Structure formats: C-alpha cells, structure tokens
C-alpha cells in the first residue's frame, strides 16, 4: 500500500468519526432535558468532532496554505466554545428553562442569594 493510500484512510477515519461525534452532539441537543445539559453537548462532542474533521481535511489536502487555515479554525474553536457555553449558561441560569428538580445541589443559587442580601444591606 502506498503512503498516499494510508493517509487517505487516516483522513477518512478522522472525517467519519468527526461527523459521527457531531451527529451525537445534535442528538444530545434534542434529547437532553434542559438548557445547561444541552450546553454540554454543544461544548464537547461538537468541538472534538470539528477538530477531527479538520485533521481529516488537513491529512487529505496536505498543502501548507490549507493546513495553516485549519490550525487557526481549530485554535479559535478551542478558545471560543467554552466562552460561548459560559455566556449562554449564565444568561439562562435563573430561569425556568433549567430543571432544578434534576439538580443534586445548587451552590450558585446560595451565592446569588447572598449577593442580593449584601446589596439590600448596602442600600438600607
């Protein structure tokens, strides 16, 4: 088997597993019970899926110009996906979209209550 064939197989494996992970992330978005659990789906399998697709593309294309662009896409995805998940989670947190009956403990609620209490004291 030539080197090209081996690289093509590697690329195919990366592309297919990346696509499957993205599919799983999509299924998770539909099936998970509330906003916060859905954000897990958006942050993890989706990021790894994209990285695998990028690796697959890089192995298949094998030209410097394309690979540098793919590297940039991957780096920015890693840097921005957690921030996006954080912003959406934070914006949606004290809201009925979140199933508090599925939570074992909620230490953020206690923290927010305390902050509100401190604000009231400062105002009084």
């Amino acid at each position, binding site marked *: 088997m030539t080197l090209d064939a081996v690289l093509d197989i590697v690329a195919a494996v990366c592309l297919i597993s990346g696509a499957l992970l993205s599919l799983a992330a999509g299924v998770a978005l539909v099936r998970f019970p509330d906003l916060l659990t859905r954000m897990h789906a958006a942050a*993890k399998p989706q990021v790894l899926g994209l990285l695998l697709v990028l690796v697959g593309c890089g192995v298949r294309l094998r030209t410097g110009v394309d690979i540098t662009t793919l590297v940039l896409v991957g780096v920015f995805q890693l840097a921005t996906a957690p921030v996006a998940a954080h912003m959406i989670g934070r914006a949606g947190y004290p809201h009925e979209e979140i199933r508090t009956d*599925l939570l074992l403990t909620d*230490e953020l609620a206690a923290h927010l209550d305390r902050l509100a209490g401190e604000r009231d004291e400062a105002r009084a």
Partner: protein
Amino acid sequence: MNPDQMTPAPPTEPPNPPLTRSARQRNQITAMVGLVTVWVLLWGTLSWANVIFGLVVAAILLAVFPLPPVTFAGRIHPIGMLRFWRRFLSDLVVASVQVAWLALRPRHVPRSAIIAVPMRVNTDLNLTLTAEALTLVPGSLILEADRATGTLFVHVIGVNSRDEVEQFRRGVYDLEARIVEAIGSPDELRRVRTIGYPNPPADLEGEPT
C-alpha cells in the same frame, strides 16, 4: 485541618496590581507575537512582506483595542505543560464519548449539580484558563466566575450522589493543580501543594430548590 482551609481562598495578591513597566512591555510583545502569528497563518506563507504587514496590523489593533492588564507571575514549565496537554486531550476524547453516550442512551435522564469551587490561586489568568479547560473536560461546564473570591461555579452532568459531586470537586482541584504546574510561579505552586483539597465553603451548601 486548620481553620484557614475552611474559608474560600483570599486573593493571593491584589487581583490586579498596577503593572510594572517591564510587565507591560512583555504583555505587549506577547500580544504582538500572537497577532502576527495569526496573520501569517491566515495568509499561509511565511514571507517578509507578510510578517511586516502583520506587525503593522498588530500595532494598529493594539493601539485601537488595548488589552486588559494580565498579571503573569509564573514561568512556563515545559514538562508540566506537556503533562497538561496530554491529559487535556485524553479528557476531551473521554468527555465527548461520555456526552455522546448520555445522548444516545435510551430512557435515561441525566442528573446534574451546580457546585462552587473556590480556586486556590486567585489570579485572572488562572481563573480563565481553568474555566476554559473545565468546559472541555468530562462532565463540567463553567456557569459563573466570581472574581472577588476567585470562585468558579461549575455545572456537572452525569452525577448521581453527593459523593460523586465531592469526587468531582477534587477533580477540578486536580485540573487547577495541573495548570499551575504548567505555568505557575513558585509561590503559587507552593500554595497549591500545601493546601491540597480545601473543604467546600460551608455557607455555599445549597439544597435543590
């Protein structure tokens, strides 16, 4: 365990002391190098024209959008860095498979929890990096960061008991320790090693509402 460990970590230093001249210059140079690298990667070829034009663009960007001051007291430890990246990549794979499995598993509603984790090293850089890494490793999602006390609020998926929640909390501290081992200053390293796992702050214990 001494009482000091019961309270959330106080800032190890004023969170944002005014930067010294050399620290400011170092930050500027780091930002310049980063921006020029992105520029060259976008063009895809390393040539003098690209580098020089990248420098011009970077200088304009930094003049128009100055970066917030970042205090970086540590230095880069290559071995700690390698260890962090190896663990991070394997964690990313585990996390993805775990969430994919939770999604495809029939008739199962995952339970979760929101926990407060006061960081032992309260600097902006450490908070940011730990929060970023946490979101990508198994089971956790960053919800809120309280800069005053250096506390991260983490949403945990797929836990079934309080014991598992506490186990997860220790996992977060392990992650913080790996980051400090990769880029921390000797002072921060000592702090992480002597404190170990702090107890959860008592006043944050919350029952589900």
